[in-house]
């Protein structure tokens, strides 16, 4: 569906990244009391930029070949730097995660609204209204 991909623009991919971010924040909140758990977050701009221009993959033909451009967390997550440290090694700060989760939910709905307007645009074009 090449036509529809163009019609929806970047919002389809953006929605996927937004969902992933909500998931990471939910994991942080779930582990708010887990010793040694390190809170993570997604840099939305970075991940979206990566999905748009992925570099051409190089092929490893021998066992001694190294992977090129490998990052520490291939899923694009980064560890959060806490404002205060906890004795048990946990870096989740519940109130900050709650605020981020609420913000991420609002951003998700924003992307959803963009997507809805694109869809209604396509529908109007198809009906010839």
């Amino acid at each position, binding site marked *: 569906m090449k036509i529809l991909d163009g019609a929806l623009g970047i919002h389809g991919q953006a929605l996927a990244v937004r969902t992933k971010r909500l*998931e990471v924040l939910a994991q942080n909140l779930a582990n708010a009391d*887990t010793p040694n758990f390190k809170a993570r977050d997604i840099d939305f701009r970075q991940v979206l930029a990566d999905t748009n221009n992925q570099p051409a993959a190089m092929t490893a033909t021998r066992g001694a070949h190294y992977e090129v451009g490998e990052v520490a967390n291939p899923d694009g997550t980064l560890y959060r730097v806490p404002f205060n440290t906890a004795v048990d090694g946990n870096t989740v700060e519940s109130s900050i995660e709650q605020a981020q989760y609420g913000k991420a939910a609002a951003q998700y709905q924003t992307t959803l609204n963009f997507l809805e307007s694109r869809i209604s645009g396509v529908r109007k074009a198809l009906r010839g209204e």
Partner: protein
Amino acid sequence: MSSFDNIIGVAGSAINAQLTRLNATASNLANASTVAGTDAEAFRAKRAVFKALVDEQYTQAGSPFVGGVFIERMSVDPAPARMVFQPGNPLANKEGYVFQSNVSEVTEMVEMMAASRSYQNNVEVINTARQLLSRTLEITKA
């Protein structure tokens, strides 16, 4: 598996873990004034030790939700039992002492409030995810 399933699953595993923690607190509070005849038999406070579900083998064995939380084990509070001189107590030893539990009511109340707040947090996470999911389903009506 859609990502929303995972959000709800992760928050669900956290609710489950917090409920176990709340249960342990209730048990500790109920036994706060339990006495025993020997130090070994005295009731000792129990605490849930949480662990993140990150390893593949955990996710295969129990909950399928990566990033959730589960109870790794129950730890026993190492604080000594309180010795109280009660010669009239039928459980008293030869010297007339009984061994009270090492439960600290204040600590348990704090633990209870922390557990219930974390529980509520995760309920809110599920609520938000559910609302976003149903809004996404309505995208076809646009």
